[in-house]
């Protein structure tokens, strides 16, 4: 397969721009359970589930394993201290071109918001490439319904127990998942009358 940067017709200067500076910034801080009620709650109720935590530019991020994601979501929503009752956004990141060899390929990102304390929290669940499935959080935040469909459509991650897991943005007969990093940009064939797909 042709590298998608070349397909795009980018100049050599643009290609050098892709060189990753694999330097961890100095202002990445680890969260501590003493200061952060969210981290403490998850550690207490779901021991062994938290993988990592970071504070960067004033934004908290907690990485968790995918197995207990529904329980963790419910805990964060219902606990008096946190009350993350609003799902701002649910998306995924394909770490194919970025991750360390020890990391898994996908991250599901839950951007949570509390309408009582006006605080934000980013919860991330790790999903491996070989078995790209995770439980749905539709029962916790109904808003996740379409957002999870979009992640399924564009990243090919299956949400277990989802009520209506269909493609949402792309046509139903589309092949591939466009937002994956190995999906070429501008690679799809333009349909004319001679090559239109028969369905």
């Amino acid at each position, binding site marked *: 397969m042709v590298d998608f940067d070349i397909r795009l017709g980018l100049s050599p*200067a643009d290609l050098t721009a892709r060189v990753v500076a694999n330097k961890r910034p100095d202002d990445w801080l680890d969260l501590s359970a003493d200061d952060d009620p969210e981290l403490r709650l998850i550690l207490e109720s779901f021991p062994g589930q938290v993988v990592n935590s970071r504070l960067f*530019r004033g934004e908290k991020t907690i990485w968790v394993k995918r197995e207990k994601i529904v329980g963790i979501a419910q805990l964060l929503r219902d606990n008096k201290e946190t009350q993350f009752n609003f799902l701002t956004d649910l998306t995924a990141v394909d770490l194919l071109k970025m991750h360390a060899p020890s990391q898994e390929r996908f991250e599901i990102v839950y951007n949570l918001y509390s*309408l009582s304390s006006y605080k*934000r929290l980013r919860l991330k669940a790790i999903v491996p490439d070989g078995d790209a499935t995770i439980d749905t959080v539709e029962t916790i*935040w*109904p*808003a996740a319904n379409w957002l999870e469909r979009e992640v399924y459509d564009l990243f090919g991650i299956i949400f277990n127990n989802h009520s209506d897991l269909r493609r949402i943005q792309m*046509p139903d007969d589309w092949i591939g998942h466009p*937002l994956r990093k190995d999906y070429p*940009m501008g690679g799809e064939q333009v349909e004319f009358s001679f090559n239109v797909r028969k369905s």
Partner: protein
Amino acid sequence: MATTLSGGSVKPDILKDVVVPRGVTVESYEQSDDNEIMVVNMGPQHPSTHGVLRLVLELDGETIRKATPHIGYLHTGLEKTMENLSYYKALVVTDREDYLSNLINNLAYSLAVEKLLDVEVTPRARRLRLILNELERIASHLIWLGTHALDIGAMTIFFYTWRERDQILDLKEMMSGVRMMTSWICPGGLRGDVPEGWLYRAQKFVDNFPRKLDEYNRLLTKNPIWIERLSGIGKITGEDAIAWGMSGSSLRGSGVAWDVRKSNPYTGYDEFEFDIPVGSNGDVYDRYLVRIEEMRQSIRILNQALKDVPSGPVMTSDRKIAPPPRAELDTSMESLIHHFKLFTEGYHPPVGEAYASCESGRGEKGYYVVSDGSAIPYRVKINGPSLKNLQALPKMVEGLYIADCVAIIGSIDIVLGDIDR
């Protein structure tokens, strides 16, 4: 902080004045006996769906039993496009997704990138951003009002709101030479200062606009037909609206006083006084009242903000982000290098991620940007408020007439460019 609009006071008074038959509740609709369900496509090329939205309606007579929205007709892969452009080039894409709140999208994206870069903008840039954002909100609300009224059959208002919106577009054109997709707010500040006389013209618009708003009010707010068409339909409770992730005026219509400008102030909104209007019934009429009042509050903010605009540059002096002035290139080697690096590569934010959001005309518009340390964003997620507002639509239209469905789509003020991206 919040003022209740229709709560116990305003709306019942209005209804007392005009004596409207208020039989418009879900329960009072006639139930037909035979179970003949007809499935009808509404859209994707239907003028009242505000774009290419397709609703599959299961009808029992004229009553909607079930509505299933189908989206994606405008999906152009904007996120993928942004992930293949440098940070500065990706800015122009943000104009094109929610095409009625261009400058607000610019700001949300710029705030996210600035957070990654850890850069401060100048006081003048901050203030001008706020002014532009409020003007954009008014323009966006004017389109909503015009098209919403047009859908319901009040045609006159459409021409009036277009007239006022044109003045805002004129202001944008005077500033940038472009009427809609200006990309004027960029990471680091603004692309350029406003020309001489711009602030005066903006103030003149702000002075004149409340009178126009009264005009709309006289045409619609106490109009018996308008009230009859809007009140009592499309109800959603505050709890449901939160659960479905609704935001903006659609959420505030249900009585939840949440506005990003108040709760998580950005670009200096905490320096100004304004109220968050909230409804109480969560119906279409409440959402209408909330948006009308929001335009008044925007004028209130603009009146304060235009008073003493700080002077100074509008772009940060950080040479890693903003290009040096042309004259410096002839004398300074360092400036030449910065200039060359900026225009061949762009800036390299550190590895990390940031989320920033603004209150757009439709709700919380957010950008989630992941950086891998290169000059191209690794992942950009556009958090569109319209998507989640539309998601709650089937809940709102169930058991109502098709004509009500049209009113409800208008009331949640969706932009399909924001939904499909």
